[in-house]
């Protein structure tokens, strides 16, 4: 199962608001694979988000 990385709920369903927030305002907060809350560090030019089970992802920029 996949999860929304903004709200942590199952990815199926309406996540329009979540998608908008992730596009403009927020880094991912939940692991898309397991919905664990991630440890997120925002920096001026990017972010990193670490799931204790599935490792780290980073922003492209």
């Amino acid at each position, binding site marked *: 199962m996949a999860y929304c990385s903004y*709200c942590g709920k199952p990815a199926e369903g309406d996540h329009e608001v979540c998608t908008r927030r992730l596009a403009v*305002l927020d880094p991912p*907060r939940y692991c898309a694979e397991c919905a664990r809350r991630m440890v*997120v*560090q*925002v*920096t*001026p*030019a*990017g972010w990193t988000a670490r799931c204790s089970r599935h490792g780290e992802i980073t922003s492209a920029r």
Partner: protein
Amino acid sequence: MTAAPEQVDRSTDVVDVAREQVLERGVGLTEAQVLEVLELPDDRIEDLLALAHDVRMRWCGPEVEVEGIVSLKTGGCPEDCHFCSQSGQFPSPVRSAWLDIPGLVKAARQTADTGATEFCIVAAVRGPDKRLLSQVREGIKAIRDDGNDIQIACSLGMLTQEQVDELVSMGVHRYNHNLETARSHFPNVVTTHSWEERWDTLRMIRDAGMEVCCGGIIGMGESLAQRAEFAVQLASLEPDEVPLNFLIPNPGTPYEDYPVVEGPDALRAVAAFRLALPRTILRFAGGRELTFGDLGAKQGMLGGINAIIVGNYLTNLGRPAVQDLEMLDELSMPIKALSQTL
């Protein structure tokens, strides 16, 4: 209140009064006058912004101060500031994190590379403990060892006199400590400490010779009268900088369902704060992307703002720095150089 411009009595119209009082004489608006500005109808906003821009140009000049900020210690804060996703008292998705020294040095370098002259190190705490101050000291040394001479500011919560003196000794030139909102509204926003405790820290900062950075957040349920009250309370502090944030309703916080501040209200607030604080660095900070979008940000820059935070914020994302730098270029607004701040 809804009179068309041609029906305005020019002898008592607050925009005309402000033109003489603030633009010509440099005297900030009173609380009653700020409230009048905040209540102006939409069809006066253009006039208002033009005046606020003239005031900024006359009393501050054309330069824009660019700053980057970073969170050294994220989340897990014991305080209950209702707007903040970093409070440990709310079910926010933000988890605790510490930025290591190499990460801090990199963030400072990224900030300096944008042409910014200010780099603010922020921690989500009630006040700093020895570990945090030690990390800040080590971080500042590492930033300097990296050959980065950017001006360093800090925002570490409430301070003791000893901590103020320690930050001065580290070379911190400016300290951010927001009053957040009007004194009369503060108990609705924060219950774990008082407005007065924040004020005490601000006085210590000023007395120690550090620059005072103190602003707040618009859109936390305050009335327009309280917004005016806040602007004048800030003016009485005579801060060197006022960061103006607009509420980002973050999930898990008590304000998660609060409405986003409407663009026209936000523009009136920008102009009103400029007219209350004609000589202060007025900085566009968090929430502008949500409240204004691209077009409104330009209006704000042409409505009294003379400083911006570029890049991301502490837990929320901002626009890529290059977009804001292009906007400043398009508006022919020069970025303040480091030599002008030394």
